[in-house]
């Protein structure tokens, strides 16, 4: 694949409702030597500790990396080396207590997501033990969480490791997907709903065309349904019409217009429903403005108290006005159009990840789906708001190889279409080789080597990387002897001095015990932290 690859066409059934917030561009899979793509995430010197009863677990000790637009950065390492902690620290999802991001900077959209970290807690060592007592100011922690919340989802989305555990078992899939959609694209959904016109003169012919298309095939039906959606002014209604037509056809039915008219009752809004939608929209606008206030605050390094106070007051007023809608009898009636609309939007999102029967899946509960299916639901959830950065934490570890191939293909295709930067966390080097552009190798809370993927696999420099590569059994090289790295990952409460790898390193020198090796440049884009090499140090 070359850098001049044509832009993948937008799939007709995905995201048609929403103009792309960013122009789709082809992401080259081979990164050029001087990477000119803009940096979307800049992590500097991230330090995360867990304060446990046994002592302080030094999980991350100075992790720095940059993520560029449209690139896939692979993060590899053994279990317990801090891969997941890195991604959780960036989005501040570390369970607190016991964990805390202690210091560092996470620059995203020019804002420091970790701003105000120093004031959140004080650390008091307990005499005679390894323990440290942490005095948190929970008011400040909560405020920081709210600030970071403004970039979660739309800015930075995550795919979690265990799809079965990341979903809520008591809500159906469409509920959970719809929640995400409403949170991030709610205003647009409501606008579309209010503007939709069932009575437009073009609608009836379009519905009849769909009825005729039922006799042809799925493609014709899809095209006709899309026409109908455009005529109504609500693409999700087109999706609904398509699945209604498909069901009607499998039931041997030929008439559809009457059913469509009935289904379109959700587009004929009563004045109460319109009022409800307006107030809902108002709330969404307030939270959007709140987000931008937070981001600009983090950018400038101070809280904008005036604007935030004003918005909080406005939110309170709107909520007071909405008290009648909280009565179940009323709520069920007024919120019906929005509920149905989000359902069909969720179906659209599921179509985007190539789920064959999205309506059935959307109605189902998490326990009814297989692991691969759930993982796809998670991906559609993460991508439903076109995030700038996608953090995939072992997205395929729980899956079979054939399903893994499907999921990786899907992630690659979406990256090409939207230009999302992906941080792919995995312990499987083979997966990295397949999809990543650059690789960062982690060991015991530190990045020990960072290189473009081909460079890393052809010329691994750090002894740990060499050991890892030698220990993979390979299908294409059956006679290869499996080398193993002696020992295991160190206990991070008492991490080894100096270079953390030295107890297991075959090339350990006296200096390794005393000093932590600096990150040095050993080739274009190839950085290593090891005393075996002495290139110029990396400049931030």
């Amino acid at each position, binding site marked *: 694949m070359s850098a001049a690859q044509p832009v993948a066409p937008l799939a007709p059934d995905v995201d048609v409702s929403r103009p792309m917030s960013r122009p789709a561009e082809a992401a080259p899979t081979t990164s050029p030597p001087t990477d000119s793509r803009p940096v979307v995430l800049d992590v500097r010197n991230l330090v995360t500790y867990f304060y446990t009863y046994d002592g302080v677990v030094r999980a991350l000790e100075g992790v720095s990396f940059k993520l560029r637009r449209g690139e896939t950065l692979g993060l590899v390492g*053994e*279990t317990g080396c801090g891969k997941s902690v890195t991604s959780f620290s960036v989005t501040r999802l570390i369970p607190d207590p016991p964990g805390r991001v202690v210091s560092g900077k996470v620059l995203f959209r020019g804002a420091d997501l970790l701003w105000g970290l120093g004031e959140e807690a004080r650390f008091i060592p307990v005499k005679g033990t390894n323990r440290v007592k942490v005095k948190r100011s929970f008011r400040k922690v909560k405020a920081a969480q709210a600030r970071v919340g403004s970039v979660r989802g739309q800015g930075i989305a995550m795919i979690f490791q265990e799809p079965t555990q990341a979903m809520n078992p008591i809500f159906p899939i469409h509920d959970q997907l719809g929640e995400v959609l409403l949170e991030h694209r709610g205003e647009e959904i409501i606008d579309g709903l209010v503007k939709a016109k069932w009575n437009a003169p073009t609608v009836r012919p379009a519905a009849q065309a769909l009825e005729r298309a039922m006799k042809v095939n799925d493609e014709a039906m899809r095209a006709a349904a899309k026409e109908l959606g455009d005529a109504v002014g609500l693409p999700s209604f087109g999706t609904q019409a398509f699945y209604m037509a498909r069901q009607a056809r499998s039931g041997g039915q030929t008439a559809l217009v009457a059913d469509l008219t009935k289904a379109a009752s959700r587009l004929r809004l009563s004045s109460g429903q319109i009022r409800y939608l307006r107030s809902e929209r108002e709330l969404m606008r307030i939270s959007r403005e709140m987000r931008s206030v937070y981001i600009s605050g983090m950018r400038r390094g101070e809280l904008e108290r005036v604007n935030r106070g004003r918005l909080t007051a406005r939110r309170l007023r709107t909520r007071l006005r909405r008290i009648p809608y909280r009565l179940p009898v009323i709520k069920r009636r007024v919120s019906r159009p929005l509920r149905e609309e989000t359902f069909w939007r969720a179906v659209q999102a599921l179509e985007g990840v190539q789920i*064959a029967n999205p309506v059935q899946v959307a109605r189902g509960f998490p326990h009814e789906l*297989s692991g*691969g*299916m759930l993982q796809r639901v998670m991906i559609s959830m993460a991508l439903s708001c076109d995030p700038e950065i996608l953090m995939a934490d072992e997205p395929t570890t729980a899956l*079979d*190889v*054939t*399903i*893994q*191939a*499907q999921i*990786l*293909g899907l992630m690659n295709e979406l990256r090409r279409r939207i230009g999302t930067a992906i941080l792919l966390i995995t*312990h*499987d*080097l*083979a*997966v*990295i*080789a*397949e999809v990543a552009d650059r690789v960062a190798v982690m060991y015991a809370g530190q990045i020990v080597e960072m290189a473009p*993927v*081909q460079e890393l*696999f*052809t010329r691994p420099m750090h002894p740990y990387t060499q*050991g*890892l*590569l*030698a*220990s*993979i*059994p*390979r*299908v*294409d090289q*059956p006679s*290869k002897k*499996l*080398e*193993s*790295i*002696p020992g*295991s*990952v160190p206990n991070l409460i008492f991490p080894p001095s100096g270079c953390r790898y030295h107890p297991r390193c075959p090339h350990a020198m006296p200096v390794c015990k005393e000093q932590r090796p600096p990150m040095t440049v050993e080739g274009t884009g190839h950085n290593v932290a090891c005393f075996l090499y002495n290139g110029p140090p990396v400049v931030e």
Partner: protein
Amino acid sequence: MVATPGLSIPGADQAAEREHVLISVRNLRKFFPIRGGLFSSHIGDVRAVDGVSFTIHEGETVGLVGESGCGKTTVGRLLLRLIEPTSGHAFYRPTPEVLERIDADYETIGPVPENGGAAKLTPGASKALRDLDAVANQYSLFRKRKKEVKKLRGRLQIVFQDPFSSLEPRLMVRDIIAEPLEIQKVGTRAQRMHRVDQLLEDVGLSPEHAWRFPHEFSGGQRQRIGIARALALRPEFIVLDEPTSALDVSVQAQVLNILRRLQQEQRLAYLFISHHLSVIRAVSDRVVVMYLGRIVERAETDELFSRPLHPYTQALLSAIPIPDPLLHRERIILSGDVPSPADPPPGCHFHTRCPAVMPICSKVSPPAAEVRPGHWVSCHLFPPTPSPGAGGALGTVDAGPDLSPLGAPSSTASPAGPAAP
């Protein structure tokens, strides 16, 4: 692509194959009943293992591959009688003569319809059935009495998948490893403790670890304790049920190397169950590929990986990520998920996802055919060659209702169908 049957001399080949057989699994089935409705009556079956036949020789490693839910683990557990089979036999240490007799019997009985007893038996077949019964009483693992099974467990052992739940957390490591010795009443207490130390050293731990509890160990170390426990009684056969799937690559290499060394030292036979094909390639001598309770292909490891014939095997192999960014391959990406074994698709189980599907596939389940010497495929692309000497009994007993008039696809379809990788 189809091997000319004349090249192999079936008689001679089979004679060699019948030497040193440890376990010969024939037509193994395990259906788990689904209960539901009023009075929780029997409303269906999960066909976890549905007519599986293969052979394990002394000192060799047989790899068993397949996606999750295809019945790999069930096969392993059945062989140790941890669960009871629905039907089928596993002949333990049959002599070549006995094997020959079994083969002949199966051939006279012919393909058994899927629902068992409904078939009309010719007098010859019912005689063969009685003879098979007699042989089974003597050799089949599934006919052993409880006491005999207990004795057998000293010879046949298992290492479980999850090292975090397969060790008793309240016992010290030495008690865990000595437990099989105690049950089998081997040696005095002092001798047992000595053996524990020796075993710990065998698997690369030190004797001081005997005094610790399982929670003090990492995953790789626990898995080694599990291996030491399995080795305690000097078995000749170990079922390794995904022994490395919970481990990191570096630790996985340690465990695989230990297993390989122990096999050389003690002439162990392994049934290595895994979904990880690169591991299977690294350790096994022969590979059996399962899909939804049935064997779709079995062959020598090199043969299978260089010339996969079944479309499922081809897709499985092409889906393995290879740790080499310079390598670009054509991928066969299978759509959809594995169907539920409670309601398997009719005919060939794979036809719902198969890229080379034909009309016959959804009607008839394909019999196993020996396409090359030792390379058996169950796929309509490779119809069995009708050669009287090449005992089709090894795998074809599974075949469904005989619907030959449908017209088996001619050989033109076979080379063209699945593109060679």
